[in-house]
């Protein structure tokens, strides 16, 4: 794009990101998750055809946003709890790797308490666990963090409500419309069927893809269990046999 006002073709008609598949994303209004009641828009959204605003996005670099890939220790002192390695790939819907993209992660400690003032759960804080990390995917979209398995924690959504063990993830991808904030869960968690946030996603297969898998290949002897979590961002362009225009 030029500042003189001469518009080049790539900026004028950028390739849009694809619409989400029906049922694979949660709704704004999910009555079982009480906090959505007063926070969901009541009016229909207005469709915004993708322009340079939606198809481009910030470029985060490790020089300005330093990576912190091992949060299982602070100042050389190991945090309490079960050390784990979590890794995976960032791909798009066509299976192409999303390289050099920033992933932010945050989580509760092993006891189920966040190092956050608002969290008043009566579980111990751990001076050696802050619970925040940042990594970048490599050329093939691979990323990896070392952390502590987070504990379950209570919340006040309903009687005896507990969040399943989870790690929060934030990704930016390659354009504004590819932004993703999600949560990774653990296999076999008995709290998953009871959790309104997890179950807000209508499509069962889409839901289950938020559950990481235990991975013996990632697991390191005498060190840590490994989990795998692949993340898929929206693809670009029309799905096959569809016309080029975005919705």
């Amino acid at each position, binding site marked *: 794009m030029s500042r003189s006002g001469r518009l080049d073709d790539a900026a004028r008609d950028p390739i849009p990101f694809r619409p989400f598949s029906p049922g694979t994303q949660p709704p*704004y209004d999910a009555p079982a998750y009480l906090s959505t009641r007063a926070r969901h828009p009541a009016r229909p959204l207005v469709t915004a055809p993708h322009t340079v605003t939606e198809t481009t996005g910030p470029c985060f670099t490790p020089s300005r946003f330093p990576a912190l890939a091992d949060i299982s220790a602070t100042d050389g002192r190991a945090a309490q709890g079960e050390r784990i390695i979590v890794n995976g790939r960032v791909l798009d*819907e066509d299976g192409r790797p999303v390289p050099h993209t920033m992933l932010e992660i945050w989580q509760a400690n092993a006891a189920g308490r966040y*190092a*956050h003032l608002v969290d008043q759960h009566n579980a111990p804080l751990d001076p050696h666990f*802050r*619970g925040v990390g940042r990594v970048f995917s490599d050329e093939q979209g691979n990323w990896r963090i070392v952390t502590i398995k987070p504990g379950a924690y209570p919340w006040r959504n309903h009687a005896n409500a507990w969040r399943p063990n989870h790690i929060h993830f934030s990704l930016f991808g390659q354009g504004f419309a590819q932004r993703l904030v999600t949560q990774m869960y653990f296999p076999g968690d008995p709290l998953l069927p009871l959790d309104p946030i*997890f179950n807000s996603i209508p499509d069962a297969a889409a839901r289950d893809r938020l559950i990481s898998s235990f991975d013996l290949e990632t697991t390191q002897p005498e060190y840590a269990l490994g989990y795998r979590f692949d993340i898929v961002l929206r693809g670009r362009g029309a799905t096959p046999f569809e016309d080029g225009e975005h919705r």
Partner: protein
Amino acid sequence: MPTATASQTIGPYWHLLEEKGWDDLTRFGPVPEGAARITLTGVVTDGDGAPVADGCVEVWQADPPASDDFLGWGRAATDAQGRYSFTTLKPGPVPGRGDARQAPHIAITLLARGLLKPLVTRAYFAGEALNDTDPLLAAIEDPARRDTLLAREAGDGVWQFDIRLQGEGDGRAETVFLDV
């Protein structure tokens, strides 16, 4: 081929990500010649009129073009009164689809507890001539709704853009949110 990973709420504890200065998009370099530093600020309220005090507001602008001195992106937390504030550079017009020209705007992503996926909107600048021909603004028929996308100059270089998540109960219009 798998579909895009499902969104989940950012929750009430996302502030662990917060870093000083991320609300100042001009922090990496000097203000370029011809650009103007502005403040974009506003209050986020819910359907009860209560402040959204735990929100994460992110801004992105394609103009001025990103450079080593200007990332074009920022993040701010809402305070107890629901207020967010950014320091940035006033954007100029950018290309739209076809031969269209888009009026100057800043794209906004709002993430919070109670939002299972992001809410996206745009802050345009009241008084810009191009607002009358902007394709997105033109697609919103109701002028009261269209007005929710206009930031108002509230002082020298200070632009006020309030975000209303839901409802018309107390006379304030729900902000137009975008399906992007």
